[in-house]
């Protein structure tokens, strides 16, 4: 799929033309130099307000059901990304619904305490008191090394980079550039000069012949990926290059006993199913385990059974991606063992889609943390209370990202604080785990502030 073939675009990104076979180290280095030049010409003079206006317009475009890039992504996306049209539609909406002027301004204020920090010397109250001003400057060239096929983290990185006025080289995993390219082209269509500050390419991670020249030209490198990927990139970077690494994380949900009954139950189940189905449970923010509190009128195992029914209903509305044989085999292998355990004792129960691997619910009375294999394979575990959850998370504590909560209003703050103190970097209502706001502090890090360099001016 080449974007320029069906339009009058005057640009094309590397990945529009093919994978790494279309690239040479020289081409990559030249692209990096061109990006630096384009930044000086096209971004340097732009105010934050100007940037926000353009991005908000792009967001508005994408929210229009008839917008041609949106239609293109929903029509061709299933084949390009593997995700079903409905999964893409829901998933992309969580990003583009956020891309508004108000939200982007809120993001700048949250990060810099002042809307014009990036435009020139500005002074806040504390600084005025000591006769100081300050200026924040984004990196000239950010290189994003993106892993996996979930588009939203990449789109969010692209917006962040633009907001701090940086040119960006986006390295996607093989087969994962389709939506980032569509987004870049949609920016190009709105503001060609901004669109010219992106380059997007695909190659198998670790290809030193491309990455080394790129790293030499970069001012800042961000990377998502496995521990091994992050470590390897960090080791290969020149000392002066700023590095932001985001390792793979895990997320879970906690359902309080009061949420299992009557109307609350149907909402809880629906929200849990939405979180499991979002991006087919492949994201860091997707729940792998749902801890359900014991002691209520409804047993956690009953919740598990109802969740299975809910996932079955949702499968019809929002089908899961087709899997590779390896991925399907991972589910089949796990199911085989849980089927035997379920036949062996009531401590384990298994519900699964008939004749497919579309969804799987494993109930275990054993509260020990268990990694899921994703693709809508979820564990439901019964638990005495939140403290017992924390005890069972101890072995994976350092990797904890999001906790989705379903609990009565009066318990929320206490639970959020407990999970936060333990190390969770995000607590949100169940049903919104895969929809972080644009102001989200990714893995507990500042959303933008880590990208910039400050200049303090003492008058």
């Amino acid at each position, binding site marked *: 799929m080449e974007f320029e073939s069906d339009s009058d675009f005057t640009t094309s990104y590397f990945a529009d033309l093919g994978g790494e076979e279309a690239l040479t180290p020289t081409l990559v280095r030249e692209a990096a130099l061109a990006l630096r030049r384009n930044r000086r010409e096209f971004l340097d003079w732009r105010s934050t307000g100007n940037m926000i206006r353009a991005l908000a317009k792009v967001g508005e475009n994408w929210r229009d059901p008839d917008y041609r890039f949106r239609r293109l992504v929903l029509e061709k996306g299933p084949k390009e990304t593997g995700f079903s049209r409905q999964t893409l539609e829901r998933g992309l909406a969580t990003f583009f619904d956020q891309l508004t002027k108000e939200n982007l301004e809120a993001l700048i204020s949250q990060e810099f305490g002042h809307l014009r920090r990036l435009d020139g010397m500005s002074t806040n109250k504390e600084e005025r008191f000591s006769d100081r001003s300050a200026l924040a400057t984004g990196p000239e060239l950010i290189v994003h090394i993106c892993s996996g096929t*979930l588009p939203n983290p990449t789109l969010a990185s692209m917006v962040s980079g633009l907001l701090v006025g940086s040119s960006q080289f986006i390295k996607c995993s093989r087969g994962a550039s389709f939506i980032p390219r569509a987004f870049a082209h949609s920016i190009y269509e709105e503001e060609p000069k901004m669109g010219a500050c992106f380059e997007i390419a695909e190659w198998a991670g670790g290809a030193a012949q491309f990455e080394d020249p790129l790293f030499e030209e970069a001012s800042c490198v961000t990377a998502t990926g496995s521990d091994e990927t992050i470590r390897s990139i960090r080791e290969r970077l020149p000392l002066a290059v700023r590095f932001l690494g985001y390792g793979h994380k895990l*997320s879970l949900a906690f359902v309080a006993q009061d949420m299992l009954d009557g109307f609350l139950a149907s909402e809880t189940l629906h929200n849990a199913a939405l979180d499991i189905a979002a991006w087919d449970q492949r994201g860091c923010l997707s729940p792998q385990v749902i801890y359900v509190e014991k002691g209520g009128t409804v047993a956690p195992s009953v919740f598990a059974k109802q969740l299975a029914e809910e996932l079955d209903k949702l499968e019809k509305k929002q089908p899961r991606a087709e899997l590779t*044989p390896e991925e399907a085999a991972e589910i089949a292998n796990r199911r085989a063992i849980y089927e035997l355990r379920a036949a062996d004792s009531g401590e384990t129960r298994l519900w699964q889609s008939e004749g497919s691997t579309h969804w799987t619910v494993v109930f275990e009375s054993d509260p020990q943390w268990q990694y899921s294999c994703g693709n809508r394979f979820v564990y439901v575990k019964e638990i005495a209370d939140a403290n017992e959850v924390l005890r069972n998370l101890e072995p994976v504590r350092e990797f904890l990202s999001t906790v989705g909560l379903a609990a009565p209003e009066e318990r929320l703050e206490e639970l959020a604080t407990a999970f936060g103190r333990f190390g969770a970097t995000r607590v949100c209502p169940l049903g919104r785990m895969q929809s972080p706001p644009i102001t989200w502090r990714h893995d507990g890090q500042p959303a933008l502030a880590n990208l910039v360099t400050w200049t303090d001016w003492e008058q």
Partner: protein
Amino acid sequence: MNPTDPFSEIGARIGGFIDEHTTRPASDADFNRLALDLFALQFQHNGPFQRLCRARGAEPDCVDHWTRIPAMPAAAFKEWEVTSLPADRRSRVFHSSGTTEQTPSRHWHDDESLALYESSLKPGFARAVLGGETRVRHQIGLLTPSEEDAPNSSLVHMFAVVKETFGDPDSTWLGATGEDRAWIPDPARLATFLERSVVEELPVILLGTAFLFVHLLDLLEGTDHRFTLPAGSKVMETGGYKGRSREMPREELHRLIGYRLGVGPERIVREYGMSELSSQAYANAQPSGPPPPAEGGEASLSQLSTSDSPARRSPAKAAQLFHFPPWARARIVSPETGAEVAEGETGLIQIHDLANLRSVATIRTEDLGIRRGEGFELLGRSAQAEPRGCSRMTN
């Protein structure tokens, strides 16, 4: 044989079946009759298997074909005692080979089931590796540690039986157990064995796991040694790596075996077996049949393809096909639906091994394969897919 023991009786029938079909194929009806009788017995005497069948609603009185017998996941051998042998009759146990695994598979035998295992492995090996030449003794070098050093390895037991049955007096163990019980080749014994073969112009047969061959090749490369083993020499390699040496693509391994040992790919046989089975599949180097047509789509789409998994990639050349002997049948089943896949499609390898007397005959492996005619192409362990998401799946 103990005539009052139903396992003895059916074991004898299976032994007869093996003898009868050593060189000629078995009819489905004959295979089925024996498989169903064995199923009835295993259902009755094997607790975990019985529970699995009950959960599936597949009990002996409603199953009329061996393909409908529930398959025991190979991984179940780690967690349950998948055996009909009472504790006091278990004279031998084979463990799965992974050194890093905390709980290995356990496959128990008594003297009778072990004898059946041996009577299954001998004709299979004789046919695939010796080309049926059993009148003369062969000089066999075994890269693994000896049976005294690795008493719980089914592979080493197989090698011991092979050495005893087909080997000449100079046949010998060439491996040792190193630190943390890992298997390594013994450089001194290896050098003696290879040098003597070359000097005396005696063809040899080298048997070992793929990772032991990698170790061997590394040793030879380290000392920059090359041997040209005499014509007629053969290599049989088996198994994966499981982190015990650097991994090497098969073509590269075979090329280097040719370069360092002078044994060409046409004389390298691959074996596929596991501790949960009692029969082995073999693939020899003869390319079987034309390569399958490339998978659909015009070339331009491949640039944007979301998957580059081995399972989807079309083989560039005819792949080596594995075949079990007639008393064990492999089916390639869809991980998605559990049904047998169509010709040329990928699925999990499931084996119905009549020689698995005391455990369960139908074993679902975690290996992926492609169904090709009566055989299959081995893709290997299924959990090697690069994750497509960003979620942490392991510590």
